[in-house]
C-alpha cells in the first residue's frame, strides 16, 4: 500500500468527520425545508380544508410517536455518554433501546398508513383524485412528508445497527467513537424534523 493512503488513514480527524456530519445535516434540513415551504403555502391557501383533514389523523398515535422519538433521542445521547465513560454494556443497552423505539415508531406508522390505505386513501388512488383540492393537497403532503421522514428513520436505524455491531466488536470504544457520534447526530435530526411535523400535521385546531 502506498504511503499516501496510509498517511490519510493514520491521521484520524474526528473534528473533520463531525463537521462533515453537521454539514450533511444542513442539507437534510433544507431538503425538508423545501417541503415545509410547500406546506406553508398550501396551508395559507386552504386553512379550512387542512384543519378538516388533520381531524382525520389520530392525535394519540402522533403523540405516542412523538414521545417515542423524544425518548429514543435521549437514549442515543446516553449511549454516547456511556461510550465516553467506557461503559460498553450500557452503551449497547442504550443503542438497543433506541433501535427498539425506532421500530415502535415504524410499526405505529405502518398501522397509521395502512388504515388510510384501507379506506382507499393513498397517493394516486381513485379516492385521492376525487377529493377536493385542499384535502387532496393535505394528504399528498402528509404522505410525502411522513414517508420521507420514515425513510430517514430507516437510514438512521441502519446507521445505529452498524454502530451496535461495531461497539460489540470493540471497533467503537472510548477512544474512537466518532461514528456513533455522527449516527446519533443523524438520529437527533430525525427527531428534530418530527418536532415540526407533529404539530403541523396532527394539531391543526
Amino acid at each position, binding site marked *: 500500500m*502506498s504511503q499516501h493512503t496510509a498517511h490519510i488513514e493514520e491521521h484520524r480527524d474526528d473534528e473533520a468527520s463531525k463537521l*462533515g456530519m453537521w454539514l450533511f445535516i444542513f442539507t437534510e434540513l433544507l431538503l425538508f425545508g423545501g417541503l415545509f415551504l410547500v406546506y406553508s403555502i398550501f396551508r395559507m391557501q386552504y386553512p379550512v380544508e387542512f384543519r378538516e383533514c388533520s381531524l382525520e389523523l389520530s392525535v394519540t398515535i402522533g403523540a405516542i410517536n412523538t414521545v417515542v422519538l423524544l425518548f429514543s433521542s435521549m437514549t442515543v445521547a446516553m449511549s454516547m455518554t456511556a461510550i465516553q465513560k467506557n461503559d460498553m454494556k450500557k452503551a449497547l443497552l442504550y443503542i438497543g433501546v433506541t433501535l427498539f423505539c425506532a421500530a415502535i415508531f415504524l410499526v405505529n406508522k405502518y398501522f397509521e398508513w395502512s388504515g388510510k390505505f384501507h379506506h382507499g386513501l393513498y397517493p394516486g388512488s381513485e379516492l385521492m383524485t376525487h377529493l377536493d383540492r385542499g384535502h387532496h393537497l393535505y394528504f399528498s403532503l402528509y404522505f410525502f412528508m411522513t414517508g420521507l421522514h420514515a425513510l430517514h428513520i430507516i437510514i438512521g436505524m441502519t446507521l445505529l445497527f452498524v454502530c451496535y455491531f461495531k461497539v460489540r466488536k470493540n471497533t467503537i470504544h472510548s477512544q474512537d467513537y466518532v461514528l456513533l457520534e455522527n449516527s446519533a447526530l443523524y438520529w437527533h435530526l430525525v427527531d428534530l424534523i418530527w418536532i415540526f411535523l407533529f404539530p403541523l400535521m396532527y394539531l391543526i385546531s
Partner: protein
Amino acid sequence: MSNVSANSEYVSYLDHQGKYKGIMSWIMATDHKRIALLYMYSIMTFFIIGVVLGIMMKLEMLTPGETIMKAKMYNSVFTLHGILMIFMVVIPGLSAVFGNFFLPIHIGAKDVSFPKLNRFSWWIFVVGSIMAVLSQVLKDGPPDTGWTFYAPYSTTTSSNVIMATAAAFVLGFSSILTGLNFIVTIHQLRAPGMKFFNMPLFPWALYATAWIQLLATPVIGITLLMLIAERAFHIGFFDPALGGDPLLFQHLFWIYSHPAVYVMMLPAMGVITEIIPTFCQRQIYGYKAVAVSSLAIAGVGFLVWGHHMYTSGMSDTARWFFSLLTFIVAVPSAIKVFNWITTMYKGSIDVKPPFLYALAFIFLFIIGGTTGLLLGSVATNVQVHDTSFVVAHFHYIIFGGMGFAFFAAIHYWLPKMYGKMYDFKMANIGLVINFIGFNLLYFPQFIIGIQGMPRRYFDYPAKFQPAQLVSSIGGFILVTGLIIMIYTLVKGARKGAPAPANPWRGSTLEWQIPSPPSVENFDEEPVIKENPYDYK
C-alpha cells in the same frame, strides 16, 4: 513500504505506483489531483457533445423554417444541450476540476479532508451522467421540457422526464458532496500559520461556492422528487386542476438555480483573481474586499431568484422586491471587476495566453453583467423576457464568463498539472478565433431579441435572417477556435517541452512545488506567507 518518503527522490503523482495498476489506478484513485483529471476528462467529453448539439441548433437556425430538423427534434436538442451544459459541465466544471486540484495545494494541505468521499463524488457524477444519457435513448423519447423542467408541461409530456430529473438529482448529490468536502477541508486542513485571510482568493471563492452547493442543491433535489411524485402519483402540488400551483415549481426551481449561477461564476472569478496578480506581478488590489465579496455574492444570491419569474404572474410587491435585491447582488460582482482592473494599473504586465483569456473574460463578463441588470429591472425584463436577448445574456455569463475562465484556468495551470508547456503562438491564435467567434455568435442575438425573436423556437420570420446568419457563422468560427485550442492543449500536455516549477513567476503555493506535483504535494513543509500575493 513505499517509494515516496520525506527524503527520497521525488515521484510525480502521474507516475506514482499505488495499490492499483493501470486504469484501476485512476478509477480507484483517492488523490485529489487524479480525481481532478478524471473530472476534467469527463467534463470535456460532455462539453464536446454539448457543442455538437449547439452547432446542430445553429444549423437549424441558418434559414427560416425547417432546415435540418423538425420542431420536436429541436426541442429535444436544446433540452439535452441545456442539461448537459448546466448540470454536467458548468456546475461541476471549475470547482470539481481546478478546485479539486488546487484547493488543497493552495492551503498547504496534502489532500482534501475526505479523499474517499471525493472519489465517491466522481463515481456518482458518472452514474448521474449515464442516467442523463439513458433519458435520451429510452423508449418514451428524449425529454423536451428545456433544462428548467417547468411544470405543468413537465408533468404532462410523455417524454422521459423522470429519468432526466433523477439524473439531475444524482448529479446534485455529487455536487453536494464536493461542496461538503471543500468546506471541511478549508476549515480543518489549512497549513499551520495560514489563517482565513492568508488564503489565496481562489480557495475563498471555492469556499463561498461550496456553501451554495451545500445549501441550495437540496432544494432542487426535493423539487425534482416532487416532480417525479407529481408524474407518478398526481400529488397535485404543481397541478392547478388539483389545487396546486405551477408557479410554486418555478419558485422552488429558481431557489436553487439562481444560486447555481454563482456555483458557476464564483470559482470563475476566483480563477481570474489568481491570474491577474501573477501576470501583472502586483499585489491584488483590495484583497479583503475581493474575499468578502465572494461571501456577499453567495449570501445575497440566495434571495434574488424571483427575477426569473417577472412575467409569470407573481405579485407586484414580489416583483419590485426581487428587482431591488437583484441590483444589490450586482454590487459585489462589480467590486471584483474594479479590483481586477485596478490591479493591472502600473503593473508589469506579461501578456501570455492565460492573461489574455482573463482579459477576454472581463470583457465578456461586463457585457453579460450589464445586460443582466437590464433583465433584473422589471420594466425592461417584461419586454425581452423569453427572447433571444436572454439567451445571449446567459451565454455571455456562462460561456463568456465561466467558459472563458475555464480556458484561462487550463492555460494557467496546465504546466503545473502535466509538467509540460503548450505552444503560446497557437494558444493565442485559438484565443483570438474563440473571441471573435463568440461575439459573432451571441451579440446578434441581443439585437434580434430586442426586436422580438423568441427563444426556443426553431423557426423565425425572414427579417431575422441576416442576424441569424451572422450568428451561425460565428458558431462555426467558435468551433474552429475550440478545435485549435483543444489540439494545442492536448499536444502540449502530451509532447510539450518540460515546464519549470514556476513558469509565470506566480507567488501562491502551487508554484513552490515541482511540476507536476508529487503525490503528497509538499515533500517539505511549505513556507506560508502572510500575504499570498507578495510581489516585490
